[in-house]
C-alpha cells in the first residue's frame, strides 16, 4: 500500500474509533459497559479521535508530515517517512464486538 493510502487508512481508523465512542454515548449503550460518570472521558476521547483524524488526513502528501514521522520513528531515518501503521486491522475489533456480541 502506498504511503498516502496508509495515512488515509489511519485517518479513517481514527475517525471510526471516535464516532464509535460518541455513538455509544448517543444511544446510551455506554452504561452497559462503564460507569456513566466516565462518560465525559469517553466523550472527549471520541471528539479527540475525530479531530486527530482530520489532522492526519490534512497531513497526507505533505513533506511536513514526513519530518514529524521521522522524529517519532527515529530508527527509520533512511526510510524517508514510511508511515508505519502496524496492525491497524485490530481497530475493527472493538466495533465488531459491539455489533456482534450482546
Amino acid at each position, binding site marked *: 500500500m502506498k504511503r498516502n493510502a496508509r495515512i488515509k487508512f489511519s485517518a479513517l481508523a481514527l475517525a471510526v474509533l471516535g464516532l464509535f465512542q460518541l455513538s455509544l454515548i448517543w444511544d446510551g449503550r455506554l452504561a452497559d459497559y462503564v460507569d456513566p460518570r466516565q462518560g465525559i472521558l469517553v466523550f472527549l476521547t471520541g471528539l479527540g479521535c475525530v479531530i486527530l483524524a482530520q489532522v492526519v488526513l490534512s497531513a497526507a502528501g505533505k513533506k*511536513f508530515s514526513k519530518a514529524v514521522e521521522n522524529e517519532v520513528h527515529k530508527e527509520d531515518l533512511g526510510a524517508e517517512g514510511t508511515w508505519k501503521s502496524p496492525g491497524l486491522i485490530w481497530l475493527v475489533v472493538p466495533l465488531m464486538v459491539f455489533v456482534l456480541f450482546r
Partner: protein
Amino acid sequence: MPSASKYHASSSTTGSRLQLLVIAAMALAGILSRILETSGGNATWVSVFLDSAHRFSVGFERIFLETAPFLLLGAFTSAVVAHLFTDADIQALFKGGTRRSVIFGILAAFILPVGDGGSALVARQLLRKGAGAPAAATLMVAGPGVTLITAGAGLGANGMVGLAGLRLATAVILAIVFGLILAQESGLNRIIKVENLPTATGDSASLLEGEGHASKAKAIALAASIEFLEWMPLLVIAALIGGLLQALIPAGWIPPVQGSAAWQNAGSGLWAILTAQSAVGDLYTVQNGLTTWSVSAQRIYLLVGMAVDVKLILFYGRIFRRKALFYWISLSLSLSLLAGLVIESFGGLR
C-alpha cells in the same frame, strides 16, 4: 541481506495471518451467539455459551473504553514532551542522583495527565530523551495511582476518601521501591528493551525551531496520532485477552468468592487483574454498592487493580525486560497485600 529481508517478510505474513485468524474466529463466535440468541433455545450449553459471550463483550469493551482516554492523554503528553522540551531540559530534570530521579518521577506522575497505560508512552519518551531509568520507571508505575484525574475522582467520590488515600500512598511507596530497585541495576539494556527506544539522533525540539505556533500545534497533534495508533493495537489485544479470560474462568472464581477471607481476597485480586479496569473505573465499581464483597476484598480489588493488570503487563512489557517485569509484578502484589494487612490490623478504613 536477502535472507534477513526474507525472514522479515515471512514473519510479517505470519503476523497478518494470525490477526486475520483471530478476527475471523471472533466474528464466527459473535455470529453464532446472535443466531443462538434469536433462536430462543434453552439448552444448558446455549445459556452457558450466551453467558460467556456476554461476559466477553462487556469485559472487552470495558477495558477498551476505560483505557482509551488515558492512552490518548499519554500520546498527547508524550508528543508535547517530544516537541516542546529539548533533550537537555529532560536530562536536567530526570537524570542525576537516584533519590532526585525518583522524586521527580513521582512529581511528574502527579502533575502530568497520564493514568493507566498513558504513563508508559510518556516514560518511553523520557527514556528516548535521555532520562534515567529509575525516573522513567517511577513515573510509569506511579502514574495509574497518583495522577490528578485518579486522585480527584477518589477524593470526589462519596465515602471513598479513605480507600483512595490508601491507594495513593501505596502507589507512591510502590513507585519509590521499584525506582530504587532499578537503580541498583548496572546496564540499561538489562532492564529496558532498548531496541524499542529509537536512538536519539539530535534534538527533537530543533525540528520546530523558527516555526509558528500553528505548525507546532499541528506537529504535536500529528505525533500524538502516530503514537496513539502505534499503541492502540496493543490495547485491543489486551482487551481481547482480558475479555476472553473473564469469559472462560469458572463462575465460582468471580467475586464474591465463597470461602475463607484468603480465598475472597485471592478471588478479587485475580478479578482485578483480568477486568483491568482503569484506576477511575474500579473506584466507581467499588462505590456502586459492592455490598456482597467483604471490605478486605474491595481493598484488594482497588490496590491490585491500580498496580497490575492484563493491559499494564502488555504495555510495560513493551518497555521492560522480563526481569524488570518480574520485579514489578511481585512487588505490586506483595505491597498490595501488605497495605491491606496493615490497614486491617489498625481496624480498617470504613
